[in-house]
Protein backbone atom coordinates (compact mmCIF):
# COMPACT_ATOMS: atom_id res chain seq x y z
CA UNK A 1 0.00 0.00 0.00
CA UNK A 2 1.38 3.39 -0.99
CA UNK A 3 1.24 6.18 1.55
CA UNK A 4 -1.28 9.01 1.41
CA UNK A 5 -0.26 12.09 -0.60
CA UNK A 6 1.05 14.99 1.48
CA UNK A 7 -1.22 17.83 2.60
CA UNK A 8 0.93 20.40 0.81
CA UNK A 9 1.00 18.46 -2.45
CA UNK A 10 -2.78 18.07 -2.38
CA UNK A 11 -3.07 21.77 -1.55
CA UNK A 12 -1.13 22.60 -4.72
CA UNK A 13 -3.38 20.25 -6.72
CA UNK A 14 -6.45 21.94 -5.22
CA UNK A 15 -4.99 25.35 -6.09
CA UNK A 16 -4.48 24.35 -9.73
CA UNK A 17 -8.02 23.02 -9.90
CA UNK A 18 -9.55 26.09 -8.25
CA UNK A 19 -7.73 28.42 -10.64
CA UNK A 20 -8.77 26.34 -13.65
CA UNK A 21 -12.40 26.38 -12.48
CA UNK A 22 -12.27 30.13 -11.93
CA UNK A 23 -10.77 30.77 -15.36
CA UNK A 24 -13.70 28.98 -17.00
CA UNK A 25 -16.21 31.50 -15.64
CA UNK A 26 -15.30 34.09 -18.24
CA UNK A 27 -17.62 36.93 -17.25
CA UNK A 28 -16.56 36.88 -13.64
CA UNK A 29 -12.88 36.54 -14.61
CA UNK A 30 -12.95 39.73 -16.66
CA UNK A 31 -15.02 41.70 -14.18
CA UNK A 32 -13.22 40.57 -11.03
CA UNK A 33 -9.74 41.14 -12.38
CA UNK A 34 -10.47 44.48 -14.02
CA UNK A 35 -12.66 45.87 -11.22
CA UNK A 36 -9.89 47.78 -9.40
CA UNK A 37 -8.76 49.36 -12.66
CA UNK A 38 -12.35 50.35 -13.51
CA UNK A 39 -12.72 52.02 -10.10
CA UNK A 40 -9.41 53.81 -10.59
CA UNK A 41 -10.66 55.08 -13.95
CA UNK A 42 -13.83 56.43 -12.34
CA UNK A 43 -12.25 58.03 -9.29
CA UNK A 44 -9.20 59.20 -11.23
CA UNK A 45 -11.47 61.06 -13.65
CA UNK A 46 -13.62 62.61 -10.93
CA UNK A 47 -10.91 63.72 -8.50
CA UNK A 48 -8.10 65.32 -10.42
CA UNK A 49 -6.59 67.40 -7.62
CA UNK A 50 -3.29 66.99 -5.91
CA UNK A 51 -3.61 66.18 -2.20
CA UNK A 52 0.00 66.89 -1.19
CA UNK A 53 3.14 67.99 -3.02
CA UNK A 54 3.70 65.41 -5.74
CA UNK A 55 0.76 63.22 -4.62
CA UNK A 56 -2.26 63.02 -6.92
CA UNK A 57 -5.55 61.55 -5.72
CA UNK A 58 -5.01 58.68 -8.18
CA UNK A 59 -1.73 57.90 -6.45
CA UNK A 60 -3.48 57.84 -3.07
CA UNK A 61 -6.36 55.85 -4.48
CA UNK A 62 -4.17 53.10 -5.97
CA UNK A 63 -2.95 52.23 -2.47
CA UNK A 64 -6.57 51.83 -1.39
CA UNK A 65 -7.43 49.78 -4.48
CA UNK A 66 -4.60 47.29 -3.95
CA UNK A 67 -5.59 46.93 -0.29
CA UNK A 68 -9.27 46.44 -1.01
CA UNK A 69 -8.36 44.06 -3.84
CA UNK A 70 -6.95 41.84 -1.09
CA UNK A 71 -10.21 42.05 0.84
CA UNK A 72 -12.34 41.48 -2.26
CA UNK A 73 -10.48 38.51 -3.70
CA UNK A 74 -9.93 36.88 -0.33
CA UNK A 75 -12.54 37.67 2.28
CA UNK A 76 -15.43 38.68 0.05
CA UNK A 77 -14.98 36.08 -2.69
CA UNK A 78 -14.50 33.15 -0.31
CA UNK A 79 -17.25 34.12 2.13
CA UNK A 80 -19.62 34.09 -0.87
CA UNK A 81 -18.27 31.10 -2.83
CA UNK A 82 -17.88 28.67 0.06
CA UNK A 83 -21.57 28.80 1.11
CA UNK A 84 -22.46 28.13 -2.55
CA UNK A 85 -20.14 25.10 -2.60
CA UNK A 86 -21.74 24.00 0.65
CA UNK A 87 -25.23 24.26 -0.85
CA UNK A 88 -24.18 22.26 -3.91
CA UNK A 89 -22.90 19.46 -1.71
CA UNK A 90 -19.38 19.67 -3.16
CA UNK A 91 -17.92 20.36 0.29
CA UNK A 92 -19.65 17.35 1.81
CA UNK A 93 -18.29 15.19 -0.98
CA UNK A 94 -14.75 16.46 -0.30
CA UNK A 95 -15.28 15.74 3.38
CA UNK A 96 -15.90 12.09 2.51
CA UNK A 97 -12.50 11.73 0.84
CA UNK A 98 -9.05 11.46 2.46
CA UNK A 99 -8.20 15.00 1.34
CA UNK A 100 -7.36 17.00 4.51
CA UNK A 101 -9.13 20.29 5.26
CA UNK A 102 -5.77 22.08 5.21
CA UNK A 103 -5.30 21.16 1.53
CA UNK A 104 -8.66 22.69 0.71
CA UNK A 105 -7.64 25.88 2.53
CA UNK A 106 -4.26 25.98 0.75
CA UNK A 107 -6.06 25.61 -2.58
CA UNK A 108 -8.29 28.57 -1.78
CA UNK A 109 -5.27 30.70 -0.77
CA UNK A 110 -3.58 29.94 -4.08
CA UNK A 111 -6.75 30.91 -5.96
CA UNK A 112 -6.83 34.22 -4.06
CA UNK A 113 -3.11 34.84 -4.55
CA UNK A 114 -3.26 34.15 -8.29
CA UNK A 115 -6.23 36.49 -8.73
CA UNK A 116 -4.49 39.12 -6.64
CA UNK A 117 -1.30 39.03 -8.70
CA UNK A 118 -3.18 39.45 -11.99
CA UNK A 119 -5.33 42.25 -10.55
CA UNK A 120 -2.32 44.14 -9.26
CA UNK A 121 -0.47 43.86 -12.56
CA UNK A 122 -3.50 45.15 -14.48
CA UNK A 123 -4.11 47.95 -11.98
CA UNK A 124 -0.53 49.14 -11.89
CA UNK A 125 -0.03 48.89 -15.65
CA UNK A 126 -3.28 50.76 -16.29
CA UNK A 127 -2.38 53.33 -13.63
CA UNK A 128 1.02 54.02 -15.13
CA UNK A 129 -0.28 54.16 -18.71
CA UNK A 130 -3.42 56.25 -18.20
CA UNK A 131 -3.38 57.97 -14.80
CA UNK A 132 0.20 59.07 -14.30
CA UNK A 133 0.84 56.60 -11.50
CA UNK A 134 4.37 56.71 -10.07
CA UNK A 135 5.74 53.28 -9.24
CA UNK A 136 7.79 52.81 -6.07
CA UNK A 137 11.49 53.08 -6.77
CA UNK A 138 13.30 51.73 -3.71
CA UNK A 139 13.91 48.04 -3.01
CA UNK A 140 12.64 48.44 0.53
CA UNK A 141 9.28 49.68 -0.74
CA UNK A 142 8.98 46.72 -3.12
CA UNK A 143 9.88 44.45 -0.22
CA UNK A 144 7.10 45.99 1.90
CA UNK A 145 4.76 45.63 -1.07
CA UNK A 146 5.60 41.92 -1.42
CA UNK A 147 5.06 40.98 2.21
CA UNK A 148 1.89 43.05 2.40
CA UNK A 149 0.48 41.14 -0.59
CA UNK A 150 1.48 37.75 0.82
CA UNK A 151 0.43 38.39 4.41
CA UNK A 152 -2.66 40.28 3.27
CA UNK A 153 -3.68 37.36 1.04
CA UNK A 154 -3.19 34.87 3.86
CA UNK A 155 -5.13 36.99 6.38
CA UNK A 156 -7.92 37.80 3.97
CA UNK A 157 -8.24 34.15 2.92
CA UNK A 158 -8.33 32.89 6.50
CA UNK A 159 -10.96 35.48 7.47
CA UNK A 160 -13.05 34.67 4.38
CA UNK A 161 -13.03 30.96 5.21
CA UNK A 162 -13.87 31.75 8.83
CA UNK A 163 -16.70 34.11 7.83
CA UNK A 164 -18.15 31.55 5.39
CA UNK A 165 -20.15 30.02 8.25
CA UNK A 166 -22.12 33.26 8.71
CA UNK A 167 -24.29 33.26 5.54
CA UNK A 168 -27.06 30.70 5.96
CA UNK A 169 -27.18 29.86 2.26
CA UNK A 170 -25.24 30.48 -0.93
CA UNK A 171 -28.03 32.60 -2.33
CA UNK A 172 -28.03 35.03 0.58
CA UNK A 173 -24.26 35.11 1.01
CA UNK A 174 -23.60 38.17 -1.13
CA UNK A 175 -26.20 40.20 0.77
CA UNK A 176 -24.51 39.36 4.07
CA UNK A 177 -20.89 39.76 2.99
CA UNK A 178 -20.85 42.70 0.57
CA UNK A 179 -22.15 45.38 3.00
CA UNK A 180 -19.47 44.41 5.51
CA UNK A 181 -16.80 44.97 2.86
CA UNK A 182 -18.24 48.21 1.51
CA UNK A 183 -18.62 49.77 4.97
CA UNK A 184 -15.07 48.73 5.84
CA UNK A 185 -13.83 50.33 2.62
CA UNK A 186 -15.48 53.65 3.48
CA UNK A 187 -14.24 53.58 7.07
CA UNK A 188 -10.71 52.52 6.14
CA UNK A 189 -9.89 55.39 3.79
CA UNK A 190 -10.11 53.50 0.52
CA UNK A 191 -12.40 56.00 -1.21
CA UNK A 192 -11.61 59.07 0.89
CA UNK A 193 -8.55 60.48 2.53
CA UNK A 194 -8.37 58.67 5.84
CA UNK A 195 -7.37 61.63 7.99
CA UNK A 196 -10.37 63.61 6.74
CA UNK A 197 -12.81 61.00 8.10
CA UNK A 198 -14.51 61.55 11.49
CA UNK A 199 -12.34 60.35 14.36
CA UNK A 200 -14.85 57.67 15.45
CA UNK A 201 -14.75 56.16 11.96
CA UNK A 202 -10.96 56.12 12.06
CA UNK A 203 -11.09 54.41 15.44
CA UNK A 204 -13.55 51.76 14.28
CA UNK A 205 -11.48 51.16 11.14
CA UNK A 206 -8.31 50.76 13.21
CA UNK A 207 -9.70 47.54 14.70
CA UNK A 208 -9.92 45.87 11.28
CA UNK A 209 -7.15 44.81 8.89
CA UNK A 210 -8.24 46.82 5.83
CA UNK A 211 -7.22 50.15 7.38
CA UNK A 212 -3.75 48.73 8.04
CA UNK A 213 -3.42 47.20 4.59
CA UNK A 214 -4.41 50.54 3.04
CA UNK A 215 -1.97 52.45 5.20
CA UNK A 216 0.73 49.91 4.42
CA UNK A 217 0.09 50.31 0.70
CA UNK A 218 0.32 54.09 1.09
CA UNK A 219 3.78 53.59 2.55
CA UNK A 220 4.62 51.79 -0.71
CA UNK A 221 3.01 54.17 -3.23
CA UNK A 222 3.32 57.59 -1.55
CA UNK A 223 6.57 59.48 -0.85
CA UNK A 224 7.92 59.12 2.68
CA UNK A 225 7.27 62.82 3.25
CA UNK A 226 3.55 61.95 3.32
CA UNK A 227 4.00 59.81 6.45
CA UNK A 228 3.80 62.95 8.59
CA UNK A 229 0.23 63.41 7.37
CA UNK A 230 -0.90 60.03 8.72
CA UNK A 231 -2.84 59.85 11.98
CA UNK A 232 0.22 58.71 13.94
CA UNK A 233 2.58 60.88 11.81
CA UNK A 234 4.29 57.68 10.74
CA UNK A 235 3.63 54.64 8.48
CA UNK A 236 3.47 52.42 11.60
CA UNK A 237 4.90 49.50 9.60
CA UNK A 238 5.65 47.38 12.67
CA UNK A 239 2.17 47.82 14.05
CA UNK A 240 0.66 46.95 10.64
CA UNK A 241 2.64 43.72 10.56
CA UNK A 242 1.55 42.84 14.08
CA UNK A 243 -2.14 43.55 13.54
CA UNK A 244 -2.26 41.57 10.30
CA UNK A 245 -0.63 38.59 12.02
CA UNK A 246 -3.13 38.78 14.89
CA UNK A 247 -6.03 38.76 12.40
CA UNK A 248 -4.40 35.89 10.50
CA UNK A 249 -4.27 33.84 13.70
CA UNK A 250 -7.89 34.74 14.53
CA UNK A 251 -8.97 33.75 11.01
CA UNK A 252 -7.07 30.44 11.10
CA UNK A 253 -8.45 29.62 14.54
CA UNK A 254 -12.06 30.05 13.46
CA UNK A 255 -11.48 28.42 10.06
CA UNK A 256 -10.25 25.28 11.76
CA UNK A 257 -12.72 25.27 14.66
CA UNK A 258 -15.99 26.31 13.07
CA UNK A 259 -15.74 25.43 9.36
CA UNK A 260 -18.95 23.78 8.09
CA UNK A 261 -18.84 21.15 5.33
CA UNK A 262 -22.59 20.68 5.10
CA UNK A 263 -25.74 22.71 5.21
CA UNK A 264 -27.33 22.61 8.61
Amino acid at each position, binding site marked *: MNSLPSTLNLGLQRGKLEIRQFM*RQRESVVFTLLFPLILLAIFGSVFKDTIAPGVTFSQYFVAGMVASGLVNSGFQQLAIIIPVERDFGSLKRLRGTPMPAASYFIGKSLLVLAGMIVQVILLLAGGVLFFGLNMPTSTSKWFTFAWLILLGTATSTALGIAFSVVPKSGRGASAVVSPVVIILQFFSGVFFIFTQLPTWMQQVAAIFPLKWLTQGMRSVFLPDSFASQEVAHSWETGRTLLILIVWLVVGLFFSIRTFKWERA
Partner: protein
Amino acid sequence: MNVIEVRGLRKSYDGIEAVAGVDLSISKGEIFALLGPNGAGKTTTVEILEGFRARDGGDVRVLDFDPQVKGHDARVFRNRIGIVLQSTSDAGDLTVRETLHHFCGYYSNPRDPEEVITSIGLAEKSSSLIRSLSGGQRRRLDVGLGIIGNPELLFLDEPTTGFDPEARRAFWALIRSLKDGGTTILLTTHYLDEAEALADRVAVINRGKIIEISTPTELGGRATSLASVQWESNGEMHDELTSEPTSVVTRLGKEFNGEVPKLSVHRPTLEDIYLEMIGSSKGGSE
Protein backbone atom coordinates in the same frame (compact mmCIF):
# COMPACT_ATOMS: atom_id res chain seq x y z
CA MET B 1 -14.09 -9.85 10.94
CA ASN B 2 -17.16 -8.02 9.70
CA VAL B 3 -16.74 -4.91 7.60
CA ILE B 4 -19.51 -3.13 9.51
CA GLU B 5 -20.42 -3.97 13.09
CA VAL B 6 -23.07 -1.89 14.84
CA ARG B 7 -24.52 -2.51 18.30
CA GLY B 8 -27.23 -0.45 19.97
CA LEU B 9 -26.75 2.63 17.80
CA ARG B 10 -28.69 5.69 18.98
CA LYS B 11 -29.03 9.22 17.69
CA SER B 12 -31.52 11.94 18.63
CA TYR B 13 -32.27 15.32 17.12
CA ASP B 14 -33.90 17.81 19.49
CA GLY B 15 -35.06 15.04 21.79
CA ILE B 16 -36.56 12.94 18.98
CA GLU B 17 -34.87 9.58 18.44
CA ALA B 18 -34.00 9.23 14.76
CA VAL B 19 -32.09 6.02 15.38
CA ALA B 20 -33.33 4.03 18.37
CA GLY B 21 -31.04 1.07 18.95
CA VAL B 22 -29.88 -0.35 15.62
CA ASP B 23 -27.80 -3.54 15.32
CA LEU B 24 -26.13 -4.47 12.04
CA SER B 25 -23.40 -6.85 10.93
CA ILE B 26 -22.28 -6.69 7.35
CA SER B 27 -19.63 -9.11 6.14
CA LYS B 28 -16.95 -8.72 3.53
CA GLY B 29 -18.06 -8.83 -0.08
CA GLU B 30 -21.73 -8.51 0.72
CA ILE B 31 -24.25 -6.17 -0.90
CA PHE B 32 -26.49 -5.05 1.92
CA ALA B 33 -29.57 -2.93 1.28
CA LEU B 34 -31.14 -0.69 3.88
CA LEU B 35 -34.82 -0.06 3.13
CA GLY B 36 -37.20 2.27 4.83
CA PRO B 37 -39.53 5.21 4.26
CA ASN B 38 -38.33 8.82 4.44
CA GLY B 39 -37.53 9.79 7.99
CA ALA B 40 -37.08 6.17 9.08
CA GLY B 41 -33.49 6.74 10.18
CA LYS B 42 -31.79 5.33 7.06
CA THR B 43 -29.74 8.37 6.17
CA THR B 44 -28.84 9.13 9.78
CA THR B 45 -27.59 5.56 10.26
CA VAL B 46 -25.55 5.63 7.07
CA GLU B 47 -24.09 9.07 7.79
CA ILE B 48 -22.94 7.89 11.21
CA LEU B 49 -21.19 4.94 9.53
CA GLU B 50 -19.61 7.28 6.98
CA GLY B 51 -18.28 9.52 9.75
CA PHE B 52 -20.40 12.56 8.87
CA ARG B 53 -22.35 12.47 12.13
CA ALA B 54 -21.54 11.75 15.74
CA ARG B 55 -23.64 9.13 17.51
CA ASP B 56 -25.29 9.51 20.90
CA GLY B 57 -24.80 5.91 21.92
CA GLY B 58 -23.82 2.40 20.86
CA ASP B 59 -20.76 0.72 19.40
CA VAL B 60 -19.80 1.22 15.78
CA ARG B 61 -16.88 -0.33 13.91
CA VAL B 62 -16.40 0.24 10.20
CA LEU B 63 -13.37 -1.56 8.73
CA ASP B 64 -12.32 -1.75 12.39
CA PHE B 65 -12.32 2.05 12.69
CA ASP B 66 -14.57 4.19 14.82
CA PRO B 67 -15.99 6.42 12.04
CA GLN B 68 -15.77 9.43 14.39
CA VAL B 69 -11.98 9.16 14.23
CA LYS B 70 -10.13 12.49 13.77
CA GLY B 71 -6.88 13.72 12.28
CA HIS B 72 -4.56 11.47 10.28
CA ASP B 73 -6.55 8.32 11.16
CA ALA B 74 -9.61 9.92 9.58
CA ARG B 75 -7.65 10.16 6.34
CA VAL B 76 -6.59 6.52 6.61
CA PHE B 77 -10.24 5.56 7.21
CA ARG B 78 -11.61 7.61 4.31
CA ASN B 79 -8.86 6.27 2.06
CA ARG B 80 -10.51 2.85 2.38
CA ILE B 81 -14.15 3.80 1.89
CA GLY B 82 -16.10 5.35 -0.98
CA ILE B 83 -19.19 7.47 -0.52
CA VAL B 84 -21.86 8.28 -3.08
CA LEU B 85 -24.07 10.91 -1.49
CA GLN B 86 -27.73 11.40 -2.20
CA SER B 87 -27.41 14.51 -4.33
CA THR B 88 -24.41 16.51 -5.37
CA SER B 89 -24.58 19.20 -8.01
CA ASP B 90 -21.25 20.92 -8.45
CA ALA B 91 -21.09 24.09 -10.47
CA GLY B 92 -19.55 21.87 -13.12
CA ASP B 93 -16.81 23.95 -14.72
CA LEU B 94 -14.52 20.92 -14.96
CA THR B 95 -14.63 18.00 -17.36
CA VAL B 96 -15.42 14.44 -16.35
CA ARG B 97 -11.80 13.45 -16.96
CA GLU B 98 -10.31 16.38 -15.02
CA THR B 99 -12.55 15.68 -12.05
CA LEU B 100 -11.79 11.97 -11.87
CA HIS B 101 -8.05 12.50 -12.35
CA HIS B 102 -8.07 15.12 -9.61
CA PHE B 103 -9.97 12.97 -7.09
CA CYS B 104 -7.69 10.06 -7.99
CA GLY B 105 -4.83 12.07 -6.45
CA TYR B 106 -6.49 12.02 -3.00
CA TYR B 107 -5.97 8.27 -2.50
CA SER B 108 -3.03 6.03 -1.84
CA ASN B 109 -4.13 3.17 -4.10
CA PRO B 110 -6.57 4.60 -6.61
CA ARG B 111 -8.11 2.90 -9.61
CA ASP B 112 -7.04 4.00 -13.06
CA PRO B 113 -9.27 7.01 -13.82
CA GLU B 114 -9.55 6.06 -17.51
CA GLU B 115 -10.79 2.61 -16.55
CA VAL B 116 -13.31 4.17 -14.18
CA ILE B 117 -14.56 6.48 -16.95
CA THR B 118 -15.19 3.44 -19.15
CA SER B 119 -16.82 1.41 -16.38
CA ILE B 120 -19.32 4.19 -15.58
CA GLY B 121 -20.13 4.48 -19.28
CA LEU B 122 -18.90 8.04 -19.71
CA ALA B 123 -16.07 7.39 -22.19
CA GLU B 124 -17.77 9.50 -24.85
CA LYS B 125 -18.44 12.27 -22.36
CA SER B 126 -15.00 12.30 -20.77
CA SER B 127 -14.05 15.70 -22.23
CA SER B 128 -17.44 17.31 -21.56
CA LEU B 129 -17.96 19.81 -18.79
CA ILE B 130 -19.94 18.40 -15.89
CA ARG B 131 -22.53 21.13 -16.36
CA SER B 132 -23.42 19.67 -19.77
CA LEU B 133 -24.17 16.18 -18.43
CA SER B 134 -27.69 14.82 -17.99
CA GLY B 135 -28.96 13.92 -14.53
CA GLY B 136 -28.23 10.24 -15.04
CA GLN B 137 -24.74 10.94 -16.39
CA ARG B 138 -23.97 13.14 -13.39
CA ARG B 139 -25.12 10.37 -11.10
CA ARG B 140 -22.77 7.96 -12.84
CA LEU B 141 -19.95 10.44 -12.33
CA ASP B 142 -20.90 10.55 -8.62
CA VAL B 143 -20.48 6.79 -8.56
CA GLY B 144 -17.18 7.10 -10.43
CA LEU B 145 -15.93 9.51 -7.75
CA GLY B 146 -17.14 7.06 -5.09
CA ILE B 147 -15.09 4.18 -6.51
CA ILE B 148 -12.01 6.06 -7.77
CA GLY B 149 -10.17 5.39 -4.50
CA ASN B 150 -10.61 1.63 -4.97
CA PRO B 151 -12.62 1.35 -1.74
CA GLU B 152 -13.05 -1.82 0.32
CA LEU B 153 -16.45 -0.51 1.37
CA LEU B 154 -18.78 1.56 -0.77
CA PHE B 155 -21.78 3.53 0.50
CA LEU B 156 -24.48 4.15 -2.08
CA ASP B 157 -27.30 6.45 -1.03
CA GLU B 158 -30.23 6.14 -3.45
CA PRO B 159 -27.87 5.81 -6.39
CA THR B 160 -30.36 5.40 -9.26
CA THR B 161 -32.95 8.05 -8.48
CA GLY B 162 -33.85 9.68 -11.79
CA PHE B 163 -32.38 6.93 -14.00
CA ASP B 164 -34.24 5.55 -16.98
CA PRO B 165 -34.74 1.75 -16.91
CA GLU B 166 -31.86 1.09 -19.28
CA ALA B 167 -29.42 3.22 -17.30
CA ARG B 168 -30.58 1.48 -14.15
CA ARG B 169 -29.77 -1.94 -15.62
CA ALA B 170 -26.34 -0.74 -16.72
CA PHE B 171 -25.77 0.65 -13.24
CA TRP B 172 -26.73 -2.63 -11.61
CA ALA B 173 -24.21 -4.45 -13.80
CA LEU B 174 -21.54 -2.00 -12.62
CA ILE B 175 -22.41 -2.62 -8.97
CA ARG B 176 -22.32 -6.39 -9.47
CA SER B 177 -18.88 -6.11 -11.06
CA LEU B 178 -17.69 -4.17 -8.01
CA LYS B 179 -19.01 -6.92 -5.77
CA ASP B 180 -17.21 -9.51 -7.90
CA GLY B 181 -14.05 -7.51 -7.28
CA GLY B 182 -14.55 -7.97 -3.53
CA THR B 183 -16.06 -4.60 -2.61
CA THR B 184 -18.55 -4.57 0.24
CA ILE B 185 -21.55 -2.36 -0.55
CA LEU B 186 -24.09 -0.71 1.71
CA LEU B 187 -26.99 0.49 -0.39
CA THR B 188 -29.99 2.56 0.57
CA THR B 189 -32.76 2.72 -1.96
CA HIS B 190 -36.43 3.47 -2.47
CA TYR B 191 -36.67 0.95 -5.28
CA LEU B 192 -37.59 -2.50 -4.06
CA ASP B 193 -36.75 -4.09 -7.40
CA GLU B 194 -33.26 -2.61 -7.07
CA ALA B 195 -32.81 -4.17 -3.65
CA GLU B 196 -34.09 -7.47 -5.02
CA ALA B 197 -31.80 -7.35 -8.05
CA LEU B 198 -28.65 -6.44 -6.12
CA ALA B 199 -28.77 -7.23 -2.44
CA ASP B 200 -27.60 -10.38 -0.71
CA ARG B 201 -29.47 -9.23 2.38
CA VAL B 202 -31.89 -6.44 3.12
CA ALA B 203 -32.80 -4.71 6.37
CA VAL B 204 -36.06 -2.85 6.77
CA ILE B 205 -35.81 0.11 9.11
CA ASN B 206 -38.71 2.17 10.37
CA ARG B 207 -38.96 4.71 13.18
CA GLY B 208 -35.29 4.29 13.98
CA LYS B 209 -35.50 0.54 14.51
CA ILE B 210 -34.63 -2.47 12.35
CA ILE B 211 -37.83 -4.46 11.79
CA GLU B 212 -36.24 -7.38 10.00
CA ILE B 213 -33.03 -8.48 8.33
CA SER B 214 -33.29 -11.20 5.71
CA THR B 215 -32.59 -12.16 2.12
CA PRO B 216 -34.84 -10.47 -0.44
CA THR B 217 -36.59 -13.76 -1.20
CA GLU B 218 -37.31 -14.60 2.42
CA LEU B 219 -38.14 -11.18 3.82
CA GLY B 220 -41.39 -11.08 5.77
CA GLY B 221 -42.03 -14.79 5.17
CA ARG B 222 -42.25 -14.11 1.46
CA ALA B 223 -40.91 -17.54 0.50
CA THR B 224 -43.67 -19.32 2.34
CA SER B 225 -46.46 -16.81 1.89
CA LEU B 226 -49.62 -17.71 -0.01
CA ALA B 227 -50.05 -17.01 -3.70
CA SER B 228 -53.26 -15.58 -5.00
CA VAL B 229 -54.97 -17.20 -8.03
CA GLN B 230 -57.55 -15.03 -9.78
CA TRP B 231 -59.97 -15.90 -12.56
CA GLU B 232 -63.38 -15.01 -13.95
CA SER B 233 -66.41 -17.24 -13.85
CA ASN B 234 -70.01 -16.31 -14.61
CA GLY B 235 -69.00 -12.65 -15.00
CA GLU B 236 -67.52 -12.55 -11.49
CA MET B 237 -63.87 -12.36 -10.42
CA HIS B 238 -62.66 -15.03 -8.00
CA ASP B 239 -59.60 -14.83 -5.81
CA GLU B 240 -58.20 -17.87 -4.03
CA LEU B 241 -55.24 -17.77 -1.63
CA THR B 242 -53.23 -20.94 -1.73
CA SER B 243 -49.90 -22.51 -0.90
CA GLU B 244 -50.26 -24.74 -3.96
CA PRO B 245 -51.17 -22.51 -6.90
CA THR B 246 -50.22 -25.16 -9.48
CA SER B 247 -52.85 -27.60 -8.29
CA VAL B 248 -55.45 -24.81 -8.21
CA VAL B 249 -54.65 -23.91 -11.81
CA THR B 250 -54.77 -27.61 -12.85
CA ARG B 251 -58.14 -27.95 -11.15
CA LEU B 252 -59.46 -24.83 -12.90
CA GLY B 253 -58.16 -26.12 -16.25
CA LYS B 254 -60.24 -29.26 -15.82
CA GLU B 255 -63.30 -27.30 -14.66
CA PHE B 256 -63.20 -24.98 -17.67
CA ASN B 257 -61.97 -27.74 -19.96
CA GLY B 258 -59.44 -25.43 -21.63
CA GLU B 259 -58.54 -21.76 -21.13
CA VAL B 260 -59.44 -20.20 -17.77
CA PRO B 261 -60.85 -16.69 -18.33
CA LYS B 262 -58.62 -13.85 -17.02
CA LEU B 263 -56.37 -16.24 -15.14
CA SER B 264 -53.53 -14.78 -13.10
CA VAL B 265 -51.28 -16.11 -10.38
CA HIS B 266 -49.78 -13.51 -8.11
CA ARG B 267 -47.06 -13.96 -5.53
CA PRO B 268 -46.33 -11.10 -3.16
CA THR B 269 -43.50 -8.95 -4.52
CA LEU B 270 -40.81 -7.60 -2.25
CA GLU B 271 -42.71 -4.33 -2.48
CA ASP B 272 -45.96 -5.94 -1.23
CA ILE B 273 -44.12 -7.47 1.72
CA TYR B 274 -42.25 -4.26 2.44
CA LEU B 275 -45.35 -2.07 2.37
CA GLU B 276 -47.11 -4.47 4.70
CA MET B 277 -44.17 -4.37 7.13
CA ILE B 278 -43.95 -0.57 7.05
CA GLY B 279 -47.71 -0.22 7.38
CA SER B 280 -47.98 -2.51 10.38
CA SER B 281 -45.10 -0.83 12.21
CA LYS B 282 -46.42 2.66 11.65
CA GLY B 283 -49.20 2.31 14.18
CA GLY B 284 -51.37 4.73 12.26
CA SER B 285 -49.51 7.82 13.43
CA GLU B 286 -48.54 9.10 9.98
